């Protein structure tokens, strides 16, 4: 009994338990980071292509993704192999029991084609056919010829995109008129004059776009000429239009250096490219861009207001009930669930303010909303409300670090309160303000829930910032990295195949948030050091 009592009094067990809690918490975050880095980091590495010959004589070619105990036969293992060739085989993946594999090899002549449509293709090239040449896969210059063709097709696609952009620009006035006509008809009004204008605009568009459309046809024709004939592992040939190929590599034949090049090239494509196949392939550039622009707009709204609030609380306010109420409001603002801000943003910014703007300025397009629907401006303002407390708290800390003596000195020299603030206090508190801004950006970059109701979309046809006047389109919907994770991870038709892509997005988001937070922590630590110095 006394042994137990002394054991409890000594407290080793209690100390160890609490220590275990610390380690567990640290282990969780460490585990999360490791898993993300591992999965995302290895995804873009060119994995070997494995050809399996099964018991029944059939052959499979693909990448091995997973190995797990076979649920149907305990004690044995099975592998999941990505066989690609979606338009032929139907599904991307195949489970293969270890026992059913007769032989396994890594053929050096197997190629992986990353395509714009239908996902990856795995197979053995036979020959390359284009209008002016024909190259057998066995010929020494085959790889160079294929690369040439892929590059030429890429140029054609660029031209195609340019032509389409021009056509879109030509169509813009027609679309605007069409919206007005539709609006008028939907409101039950006469639209004869508008319809005449529309017909005229359509005629002009048709006239101006004719040569472009012709060239577009030629481009399509040219792009469709070069074809790569592939033999599939399971037998049968398949012709693949070269313009559908993004990248062609023979992974088993590559040296480590060449693999590294492919790896980096894929990362670059991921960060700078457009998404393909409903976001499950390609890049996430529009999402990165949308996140950045939204966060910038948010900063423009949140930082000035936050700084003013902090200055008020720290420099101007007296210690009374009103100030206490402001502080309580601030504490609550920090604690209110983000989705509540989303609901408020939708009800107030989108429907009330946006609807009002539409009635005042865009009434001829009604009932199709312009600002009365979710958009980047409303999302940014909603998040500004959400991040305001972050800015205020950090700025206050910055202001508190300014020694009272400095303020008194300035006032003693005859400066007004505003002059003291502007020339002395605010410059001194800049690191605090900066910390607040950085933390707000980090918080906003990862926040998704309020955006889901105020204007984020899975796939935005146009960016909120482009070359069409007025360049910055505050009413447009946008893409966001966090929403991208949710959407592709949960709502895409092919979650299994898209999962590593999502991990890569997670890694990018995580790196962004961690870097921002580290910067804020470093800045704040410097500030605190100075604060201690000032107190002495």
């Amino acid at each position, binding site marked *: 009994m006394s042994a137990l009592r002394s054991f409890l009094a000594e407290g080793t067990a209690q100390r160890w338990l609490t220590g275990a809690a610390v380690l567990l918490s640290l*282990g969780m975050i460490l585990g999360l980071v490791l898993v993300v880095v591992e999965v995302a980091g290895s995804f873009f590495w060119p994995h070997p292509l494995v050809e399996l010959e099964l018991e029944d004589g059939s052959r499979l070619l693909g990448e091995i993704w997973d190995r797990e105990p076979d649920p149907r036969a305990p004690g044995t293992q099975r592998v999941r192999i990505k066989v690609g060739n979606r338009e032929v085989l139907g599904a991307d993946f195949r489970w293969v029991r270890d026992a059913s594999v007769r032989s396994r090899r890594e053929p050096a002549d197997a190629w992986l084609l990353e395509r714009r449509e239908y996902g990856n293709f795995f197979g053995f090239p036979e020959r390359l056919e284009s209008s002016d040449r024909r190259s057998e896969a066995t010929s020494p210059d085959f790889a160079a010829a294929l690369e040439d063709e892929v590059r030429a097709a890429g140029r054609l696609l660029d031209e195609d995109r340019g032509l389409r952009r021009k056509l879109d620009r030509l169509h813009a006035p027609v679309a605007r008129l069409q919206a007005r006509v539709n609006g008028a008809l939907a409101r039950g009004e006469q639209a004869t004059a508008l319809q005449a204008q529309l017909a005229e605009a359509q005629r002009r568009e048709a006239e101006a776009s004719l040569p472009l459309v012709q060239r577009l046809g030629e481009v399509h024709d040219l792009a469709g000429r070069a074809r790569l004939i592939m033999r599939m592992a399971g037998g049968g040939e398949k012709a693949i239009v070269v313009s559908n190929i993004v990248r062609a590599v023979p992974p088993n034949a590559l040296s480590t250096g060449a693999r590294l090049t492919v790896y980096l090239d894929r990362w670059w494509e991921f960060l700078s490219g457009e998404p393909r196949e409903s976001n499950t392939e390609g890049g996430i550039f529009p999402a990165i861009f949308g996140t950045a622009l939204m966060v910038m707009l948010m900063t423009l709204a949140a930082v000035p207001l936050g700084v003013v609030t902090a200055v008020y609380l720290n420099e101007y306010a007296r210690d009374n009930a*009103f100030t206490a109420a402001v502080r309580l409001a601030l504490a609550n603002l920090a604690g209110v669930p983000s989705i509540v801000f*989303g609901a408020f943003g939708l009800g107030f910014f989108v429907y009330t303010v946006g609807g009002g703007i539409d009635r005042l300025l865009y009434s001829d397009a009604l009932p199709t909303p312009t600002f009365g629907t979710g958009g980047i401006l409303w999302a940014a303002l909603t998040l500004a409300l959400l991040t305001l407390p972050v800015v205020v708290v950090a700025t206050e800390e910055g202001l508190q670090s300014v020694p009272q003596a400095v303020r008194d000195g300035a006032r003693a020299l005859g400066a007004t309160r*505003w002059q003291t603030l502007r020339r002395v206090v605010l410059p001194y508190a800049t690191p605090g303000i900066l910390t607040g801004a950085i933390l707000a950006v980090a918080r906003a970059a990862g926040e998704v829930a309020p955006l889901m109701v105020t204007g984020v979309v899975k796939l935005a046809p146009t960016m909120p910032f482009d070359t069409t006047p007025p360049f910055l389109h505050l009413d447009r919907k946008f893409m966001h990295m966090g929403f991208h994770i949710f959407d592709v991870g949960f709502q895409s038709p092919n979650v299994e195949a898209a999962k590593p892509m999502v991990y890569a997005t997670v890694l990018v988001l995580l790196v962004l948030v961690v870097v921002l937070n580290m910067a804020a922590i470093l800045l704040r630590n410097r500030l605190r050091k100075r604060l201690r110095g000032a107190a002495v």
Partner: protein
Amino acid sequence: MSPLGPAHLRRSRLVDRVVAGAITTGGSLVLVAVTFLMVFLLAQCLPMLRGGDAHPERTVGASHEALAAFEDEYRERVTVLGRDGSLVTVDRAGQAAVGSLEGATPPLRQAVVSSPGDLLACEDASGALKVWSVRTAVRWGDAGRTISTEVTPTATLPGAASARILAVAGSAESPSVLLQADDGATLVSGEGAPARTLTLGAPAVAGALSHDAREAWLASASGLATFAVGDADPAAGALVATAPLGSPPTALALVLGDVTCLLGDASGMVTAWQVVSGPVAGSRVLDLAGRFPGTGPVRSIAISQRNKCFAVDRGGLVQIAHLTGRRVLVDVGSAPLDAVLVGLSRRFDGLFAVTGAGAVHRWRLDAPHPELSASVLFLPVRYEGYTKADLVWQSTGGSETNEPKLSLVPLIVGTLKGALYALLFSGPCALAAALYVSQFAPSRLRAVVKPVVELMAAVPSVVVGFLAALLVAPLVQRHIVGTLLMLIVLPAVVVGAAAVFQTLPGPWRRGLSTRSELLLIAGLLAAALVLCFTLDTAIEGALFGGDFKGWLLAAAGITYDQRNAVVVGFALGFAVIPIIFTLAEDAFSNVPPSLISASLALGATRWQAARTVAIPAASPGLFAALMNGLGRAVGETMIVLMATGNTPVLSLSPFNGMRTMAACIAVELPEAPHGGSLYRVLILTALLLFAMTFVTNTAAAVVASRLRKRFGRLAA
């Protein structure tokens, strides 16, 4: 001009004053914003609790003896059918245009309109039974749109002359008419099919037909019966169920969806009847699902074509009520005493009553949210197809006639359940970690742990939710026994090892530095984890027959969802730990060191000092930390959205998922039409969330400020 000149000084002072005003205004903006947020949300959801109003409009007259009337969809004109075969169309201003019913020989003997108002059945002077289709035609012309009601003959049916028409239904091409007969009723159809007899044993006093005329309800003076008019027997309808009646029935009508039959009787009571499964398997019985009392015999019942509302005419008083909500929305007291027909407008935005003399009384109806009331949102409700009152959230019905079920209780319970499981895991873990870092660990460790925990707080919740749902949930599912084992084995291993350590000789114990102590614990944890997951299969085989989920279902009747409360508790806990840890650590650090030192000087061990001094002194702060954590767990959206499966079930089982308020808002608000019922309910949900976190945050803030004052004195 000199910078110290009087003009310049004056300007400086002016600028100073202006800026001071601006900053004060800006500073108070936060308070304004929070207040406005609350008021705005409240204003957005308040309209839903209002029942409705009926505003009388101008009474117009047709001055013919009226038999029936129709209103067009846009409520512009009312068409009155006169006994003399005239069709008088009256607009809002009272301008009348007279036409005649095509193909009918006046005078008409009787006329009945189907409940959607799309069919008219008449017996004319020749005794022929004919059906007309009624529809609203919209034409676009130079003068804008013109709306008219078109009444076109579609079928002549064989009918017993002078039999009373009880109801008409079906499509315009093949309408069916229910006629009174000596021992029940006869259903005659247009497509050359023979008449079907529905045998009741007594003449039917009132009858109703479903939209497709496949079901018929009949009421005789003593009983109510429902028949299925299938293809099995071409000559008769099959009796499905009957029920005795106490009071003589006067009116019968089917609520939109054809599930519930409303029966009005001479005593003024309207009862709602539904067919449910009987006590014997396969049998069907009629069940009394609701009552709507009133004074004065029921003259007629009109059915809304938009929702589960209906209007009851009791002669001079028309009540508009909602079936599911079991409440009366509007009392229209100014109704005529002798209305031959009362109708609800197609879009549920108006009410009209036609008197025998041809006067048309009209009301504009303003009842935007008939299906909502406080009791529907928070109390059990008996929906159509349910045999008892239940709490259900199902905002979108499968079909147009399937009503939305908007009980907030499953969402509130789901939210609290998620928060509870999260706190069960994160509360002890975070508080213990804070205690260790502030009381036992050297300050060097603190300098490492604090920023790492801050980074943990910064991990976007969408990332946590993604990993929880797609990585942790399958793992937990595969190793559920190991996971549950972990909860016991981890602490047990650590405590056991400490007990062993205690028996070691003193110099060994004292030789252990903090770093090696932590390494030792880490090793123990790793070993315990490995132990759990290797023993996992063996234990599952030994105790649960190799299948824990099957055992769970068989032994306790609990199903296992892959995305369940255990996973959510773990993932939400991940998000909440940094919040509780940071605040709790602050609370511990704010305990004046002199108190701890005094305790140690008196001979207490570090643990005794922590237990008797630090924890009691910091306890208000710890409470505040837990409250803040709770607030975060309640409002967290993305994690629960991704890791719960989002099924709004009322279950506290750790192996089931749930739907929380926040996740529900995120999923359903973008699809909810602005100003609609779902929109307002979701805004109310947001307001409730706001209120919940407001309470936890304010409590935490008040406690924290008390604490600051107390130790402020002590430290000084």
